[in-house]
């Protein structure tokens, strides 16, 4: 009895150690690649800005307290927009809805919940797509064919049309944008999960679980899913970039995240009318979106390259 407890403690300790070791190893891979390091640094910079903006911005982001369309100056470092709002404050606060908070309407109030719209969208498509893909591949037969047909339809559907229609149907809102990103992202995840599962389900441990008489859901969730985790997570990293891209585009098309919180894409859209007289309020949010999306892409790309070398 005593030995088993000691063994148990030891294994728990080593499990914790391996967690930290694995984290260090994982970060090591990131720093191996200069591209991934730069990407991570820019992304972390925006994340830091997002946290800071929760407690402090130079001025309130929605206060119309300055002259309109001012160029950068000592008071408003990046200038002001067409309603006399400070651009630094708006840019900073604009990170929140993407990365940090989602506004959920409850009754007639809106309650912010943690984690931003882009991340919830990716989590949604990851959950939905994985479930669909693993289920289709593991069960096979008609389930597989029907699921793949539905996915083919979704993939053939021009994403932007889906966004336009879903949002014009359900109205603007954080949850609707999350839904739109989930629906457009899920088919890609499902295809990846399906191809991984088709490979994994031929392995011996899956056979063993089947012989033990485990239920299909147990096998899918506890045997197959953990072994398909790696590629799915790298894919998800890329999808965060796509999601921010999509949110920016939706904002630009005038159907993105609703006010009052500033949103980069919507800022570009509103300021676009004044582009001939004062380009500043278009330039800054455009640069912000581009830098965040590019940084996430660099990060994911460097990571993938480094992992591929690692696996060789």
């Amino acid at each position, binding site marked *: 009895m005593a030995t088993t407890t000691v063994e148990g403690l030891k294994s728990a300790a080593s499990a914790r150690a391996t967690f930290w070791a694995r984290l260090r190893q994982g970060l090591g891979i990131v720093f191996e690649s200069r591209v991934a390091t730069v990407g991570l640094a820019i992304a972390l910079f925006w994340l830091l800005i997002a946290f800071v903006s929760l407690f402090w911005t130079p001025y309130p982001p929605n206060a119309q307290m300055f002259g309109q369309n001012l160029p950068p100056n000592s008071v408003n470092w990046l200038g002001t927009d067409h309603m006399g709002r400070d651009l630094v404050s708006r840019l900073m606060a604009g990170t929140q809805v993407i990365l940090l908070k989602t506004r959920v309407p409850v009754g007639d109030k809106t309650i912010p919940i943690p984690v931003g719209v882009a991340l919830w969208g990716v989590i949604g498509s990851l959950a939905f797509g994985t479930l669909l893909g693993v289920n289709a591949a593991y069960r096979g037969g008609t389930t597989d064919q029907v699921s793949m047909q539905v996915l083919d*339809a979704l993939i053939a559907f*021009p994403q932007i049309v889906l966004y336009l229609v879903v949002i014009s149907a359900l109205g603007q809102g954080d949850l609707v944008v999350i839904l739109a990103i989930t629906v457009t992202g899920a088919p890609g995840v499902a295809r990846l999960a399906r191809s991984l599962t088709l490979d994994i389900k031929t392995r011996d441990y899956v056979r063993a679980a089947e012989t033990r008489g485990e239920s299909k859901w147990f096998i899918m969730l506890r045997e197959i899913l953990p072994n398909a985790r790696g590629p799915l997570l790298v894919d998800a990293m890329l999808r965060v970039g796509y999601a921010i891209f999509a949110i920016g585009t939706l904002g630009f098309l005038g159907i993105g995240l609703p006010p009052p919180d500033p949103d980069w894409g919507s800022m570009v859209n509103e300021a*676009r009318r004044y582009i001939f007289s004062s380009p500043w309020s278009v330039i800054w949010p455009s640069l912000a979106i581009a830098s965040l999306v590019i940084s996430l892409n660099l990060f994911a790309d460097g990571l993938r390259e480094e992992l591929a070398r690692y696996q060789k």
Partner: protein
Amino acid sequence: MARFLIRSLTSTIVTMLLVSITLFFLLEVGSGDITLKLLGVFTTEAQRASYRKQLGLDRPAWLRYVDWLAGTDWQVAKLLDRPLVVVSNPQTGEPEWWMSMDGELVRFKMENGEMIKLVRLPNGSADPQPVEVTWTTDEFGNQVFWGVDSRNNAAKWVHGGGEVIYVRSKTGFSQVPEGPVEYVPLRRGLIRGDPGFSLQFGRPVATMLLPRLRNTLILAGAAFLVVMPLALLLGVLAGVNEGKPLDRIISITSLGATATPEFVTGIFLILIFGIWLKWLPAVAVFLTPNAIFDNPKLLILPVLTLTAVELGYVARMTRASMVEVMSMAYIRTAIIKGMPRRRVVLNHAMRNALMAPITIIMLHVNWLIGGVVVVEVIFGYPGLGKYIYDAAIFGDYNAVEAAAMLTVLIAVATRLIGDLAYTYLNPRIRYA
């Protein structure tokens, strides 16, 4: 091969059905009272209700989907006592529905409780004449008559008891005392080549969509011609020099270009070339339908924007493929046997390396469509993308459905072509 084609064809049809049903019911949920958008907020509920009836929007949603898909003329054929005829209007060239009656084409209206037939004259206008029609008795004991009205509807009139309706015309909104009590808008349905009328503009979708499609094809085609050679060249250059500074520069630049949203690229191009340097027009406003041929400068910035986004993608694909091929044994053999590097790359590696990117580009068209929508919105370019955008925002379901079917068809067809091209280029793959 035949089996492969049949399978893809069925899959395409099922896909289009699924897409159209989803779109239809999403728009149904979302567009709300479309007559409010069409007529404005200063109309009364009675006026809007009357107009909704004339558009056939009081019919149940599933029935309207069937109307959209398969048409309504066969549904009303047994109610009308004369055959329906479609002729094109000599002024606008748009199709019109008439009834063929005793060798002349007629439509109907009601005055003082009696039917008047409008006989079509050769110039397309109508000549009102009194007519004796056969009234039938319906289940409520009313004397009713089904005919075609002057707005391409099959309409039901009640003898002596016309309903007050509100008619929208070019000059405004007018009240007609003796109108029909029920309408079925006439259409042939999509599968018979008729996408219906745009609710927003009151014109056939087909006549509006075709010039838009042409403009978009010109835009996408021009972008394609710029992107392909350039991207393949950059990709090959990067792939051959894997790991060297040239590769780094090309790879990171193309990653940046692809990851930058189209609207950001477009806005910076407008700022630089349209506003600061004033070299090129910053917007693509078409003063005439053929402005694009008179002033090709309009195309430059939209094409450049699409190029920037697509270039990176194709170049990265080509690079990856080139790197893979360059690490193969037959390339090593060629180098070791002393063949000049230039010849190894051009004759041996390129052929195999370009196969993947060329077919993958075909699968990428779907993504291109999204880019086209944004580019057309930025520059105000009157193409298919802007049409979809405007129609979806308005909730104009006939227009959205038609445009979406077109894009789905383009996406699926190019994917099929990509598959076939791959089979042709790579003899190792054969479809069962």
